[in-house]
């Protein structure tokens, strides 16, 4: 327990931990503030202003059309030879809704905000996780610690536990504040919508998946930096995955006309995890014809269970490798 307490203290006292947590929180604050600024409630005054804008646009379009008609009568060839075919705008073409300012709807819009929260915290978690163990390896801090506790697997596991508990605490607290903030934005600057117990349950499950994503990112950063014994090792692998697997592999699969090429790309799997499912299409295959929808490309659905399985597998693989190298390698 003392080792766990020491590692928790070490994590919170690290400058890079503090910097990245603060940066993530600042970015989240900016997103919330931006949403609050952009969103405007649809009061009778706002609706009336939108209607006035729509009417003004309609009148302006009528004026343009009249001018076009005059020019057509002078030179019909320029307008296809028949001036009766010119479009005549109607009031219905200019609905007031098109002129309303954007409004944040808590019920419909909050799941997207949870994804933003998860993405930013996952990024911070990856950096903090990698640096937490990477810097210790690079500076000799790990060796120093092992002189005090010559139990390699226990030391690494305790460090990982301290990191994951720290990230869980950060995510849960931030998510709570995030929920209250966007509820308040909906209440005072937008719409809250009908919040049934089912809606809250759905928010809760999305939040849990967000927590899962943050923990996976933190554990991956930690594991990769531990295998490479340097923070940069984790960053290098992350960069390699993005460059090789996302851009390179994406282009190659597209050229090779591989079936469901998008299914090999990471963002689709993360999307499936956060949004419960992600549909990918095979645009190179002959379409599936249905009487109701016509010709549609074949579709493959990545479910959140599949995405969760993949993430769990990758994390398990990386952590097992990290533990194995910790146990077997000499510390020179």
């Amino acid at each position, binding site marked *: 327990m*003392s*080792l766990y307490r*020491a590692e928790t203290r070490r994590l919170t*006292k690290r400058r890079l931990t503090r910097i990245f947590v603060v940066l993530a929180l600042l970015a989240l604050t900016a997103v919330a503030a931006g949403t609050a600024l952009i969103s405007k409630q649809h009061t009778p005054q706002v609706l009336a202003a939108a209607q006035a804008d729509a009417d003004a646009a309609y009148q302006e379009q009528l004026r343009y059309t009249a001018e076009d008609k005059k020019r057509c009568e002078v030179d019909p060839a320029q307008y296809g030879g028949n001036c009766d075919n010119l479009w005549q705008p109607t009031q219905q073409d200019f609905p007031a809704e098109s002129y309303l300012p954007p409004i944040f709807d808590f019920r419909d819009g909050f799941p997207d905000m949870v994804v933003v929260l998860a993405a930013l915290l996952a990024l911070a978690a990856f950096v903090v996780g990698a640096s937490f163990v990477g810097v210790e390896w690079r500076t000799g801090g790990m060796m*120093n610690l*092992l*002189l005090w506790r010559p139990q390699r697997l226990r030391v690494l596991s305790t460090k990982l536990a301290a990191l994951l508990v720290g990230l869980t605490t950060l995510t849960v607290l931030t998510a709570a504040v995030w929920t209250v903030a966007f509820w308040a934005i909906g209440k005072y600057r937008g719409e809250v919508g009908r919040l049934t117990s089912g809606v809250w349950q759905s928010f809760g499950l999305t939040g849990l998946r967000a927590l899962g994503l943050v923990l996976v990112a933190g554990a991956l950063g930690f594991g990769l930096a531990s295998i490479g014994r340097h923070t940069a090792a984790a960053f290098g692998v992350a960069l390699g995955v993005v460059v090789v697997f996302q851009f390179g592999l994406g282009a190659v699969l597209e050229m090779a006309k591989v079936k469901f090429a998008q299914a090999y790309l990471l963002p689709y799997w993360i999307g499936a995890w956060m949004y419960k499912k992600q549909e990918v299409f095979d645009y190179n295959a002959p379409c599936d014809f249905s009487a109701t929808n016509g010709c549609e490309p074949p579709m493959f659905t990545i479910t959140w269970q599949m995405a969760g399985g993949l993430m769990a597998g990758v994390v398990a693989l990386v952590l097992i490798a990290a533990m194995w190298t910790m146990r077997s390698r*000499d510390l020179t």
Partner: protein
Amino acid sequence: MTAVLEISGLRKTYRGRKGVRNALDGFDMVVEAGQVHGFLGPNGSGKTTTLRTLLGLIKPNEGRMAILGREVPKHLPEVAREVGAIVESPQFFGNQTAETTLSLLADAGDINRNRVYSVLDLVGLRDRAKERVKTYSLGMKQRLAVASALLKEPKLLILDEPANGLDPGGIREMRTLMRDLSAAGMTVLLSSHILGEIQLICDSVTIISAGKRVTSGSVSEVLARHKSGAVRVRLEPGVDLGGAAQLLRAAGAQVDLGADHFTVGNASNPAQITKLLAERQIYVSELTPVAADLEDVFLELTGTAPVEGQNRQVDQTAMSAAGKGGWGQ
């Protein structure tokens, strides 16, 4: 006396592209309780590998090690509480204060944090405890490292180059600290290149070269076993020192010329000096054996004495080449 530390037949092999290298080649060492034991060896001789292996950081290929009577690495977690160690120059996080650095270690080792200020006081850093480590000089960082090793109140203290970066005052303080700790019953294993310091502080020494023990024992025993073989020669006033030196050099002696005397470095049979000189009517007024110090013994046993016109390589110890036989035998 009880052995606090025992190593026998320790072997560590590294395999690389250039083949197999024996970092430790059947190394043996014994450190008795309550002693300050010097651990000497040239660069790359296996000192740090030995200490790291002992402390569980490196896995040996074979050999037996025991600390405080318990086999390690098997029982290392149990004895670690009794062993304070610094291996090479430990790095600390520059943005943390000395107090935070030590209190984190105290937490990790389940040690009362109240010890932190006691050990900082002991190494002279009490007044700088709340300053960030990055503002510390090399010597101050070294003091902090020693403080971290003392935090556990260990029975065995292992220090790798503790005087590294210390100013002369700091070296003297470190020497006094080692003596005080030893007097209080702590056993200290001290690895250092400052041989004069080792001779002053240590009760016993082990010298390692090319992964093997080349000598060990109390400092006085080691010095007695390895006499320098050099003699200081003075001649009657008015005699040409240079001419006499030339005469001996021609016969194969290694002669260093001084202002009023000369030293013959490889005089295993001093009678030859008097005989050769007397044959030319040159008479010796003083012929004194030059006492060897630890540095001489070290250089002789490890074969690392500088040779004029040669650049010695790190792994070049040439133990067999130096010090065997001697002029005059």
